């Protein structure tokens, strides 16, 4: 079986589980909305959002919700004792990684579909100013975050105090992806948008995603063996 086909089967399995329980999407969206509420108290003064705040609000919320989803996707496998079954299945390890990554990206895209209009509505972010660039930043930034995140969440399943350690490891590691997404979004939302800078950040994100996807695929096998 080809790697992509095997990966797609794992993704489909995860999505079926998710569609039946809707656990991840409900909790992540609800959590994201509560984050937005807290940000409203911090960054809205006299009924107006502080300048430059919406980009940060958007990305910090995505990262928080993403951490929640990441921790849960593998925790679910561990609790149901299916992680071993998954690792024993006659497919290559990178296929498991890719399958998990795809399903995670689909869930995170679902969260962002709800989140983005809310940030536009509640904080007056001009999300329609450069829709393709913004979509590119969101996609590439999330891929960068999820690429590294999936690897570390998978590894952490076998370690004690994994809930605490995941964000501790994840945030410094994914920082370039987050900085890229956040700064790019900031320059789209700015009073005087700078699209040349946005393109720089997009290029940086493409490069980061490519390098870290390769590294993660490469190191997933030795990390998950034993």
């Amino acid at each position, binding site marked *: 079986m080809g790697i992509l086909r095997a990966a797609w089967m794992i993704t489909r399995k995860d999505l079926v589980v998710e569609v039946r329980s809707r656990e991840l999407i409900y909790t992540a969206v609800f959590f994201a909305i509560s984050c937005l509420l807290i940000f409203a108290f911090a960054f809205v003064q006299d009924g107006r959002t502080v300048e430059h705040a919406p980009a940060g609000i958007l990305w910090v919320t995505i990262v928080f919700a993403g951490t929640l989803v990441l921790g849960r996707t593998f925790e679910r496998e561990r609790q149901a004792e299916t992680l071993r079954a998954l690792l024993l299945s006659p497919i290559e390890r990178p296929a498991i990684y890719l399958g998990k990554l795809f399903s995670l990206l689909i869930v995170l895209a679902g969260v962002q579909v709800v989140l983005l209009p809310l940030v536009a509505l509640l904080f007056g972010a001009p999300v329609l100013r450069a829709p393709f660039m913004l979509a590119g930043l969101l996609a590439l930034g999330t891929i960068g975050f999820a690429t590294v995140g999936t690897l570390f969440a998978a590894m952490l399943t076998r370690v004690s105090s994994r809930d605490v350690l995941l964000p501790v490891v994840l945030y410094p590691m994914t920082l370039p992806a987050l900085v890229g997404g956040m700064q790019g979004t900031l320059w789209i939302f700015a009073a005087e948008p700078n699209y040349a800078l946005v393109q720089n950040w997009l290029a940086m994100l493409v490069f980061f995603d490519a390098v*870290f996807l390769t590294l993660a695929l490469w190191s997933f096998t*030795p990390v998950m063996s034993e």
Partner: protein
Amino acid sequence: MPQRDRLVPILLVVSGLMLTASPFVIDTAPYEATMGLVQRIFYYHFPMAMNMMLAAIVCGVASAIFLFRRRERADHIAVAAAEMAVVFGILTMITGPLWARKSWGVWWVWDARITSTFIMWLVFGSYLLLRRFGGAGSEVLAAAVGFFGMMLVPFIYYSVELWRTLHPGTSVVPSLPTSMGIPLYFCWVAFTLLFVALMSTRVRLERSRVLLERAYRAVED
């Protein structure tokens, strides 16, 4: 290994003597025109930062070797180097603000080099947290953190540089006048010798710890 046992005290004595002598050597350097006395922190700050970078590279390479080849010795080196990176990182981030307060007027500036040093410090801090609280099996995980942490360096650097810059660039050190270069290289050698001594002591400690743990487990079984 008896040879290394003898090497460590020698290294410690030499670096101790050099560090004791360093204030006098630094005193031979001329006053920097605009910053005056406070510029002398530089003779400690720069070697510390360089040793942090060295430790980070050693940790990354050792982690990669452990991750893909499973050499136990590489893991011991990686732990020791991560601790060195964190310690020298703290020292760098103490001496840096002291200098910045006098020459730039603020304790902290979010410029490219400072921010990326700070992020690197966080990465190796998370490496140590993982080993400390991860329990059994965390070595492999930590190795992945060390390996990814090393690969992150160019990205962190580029992304923060694209964000902003104020810190003196990489061209400063080679262009220093000899009178300032001598004390700088003197301190650099002293700190690097200290680094090697601490590293080899820590590597040996880690190996003894692993052997002891294995012996305990053998007795329990």
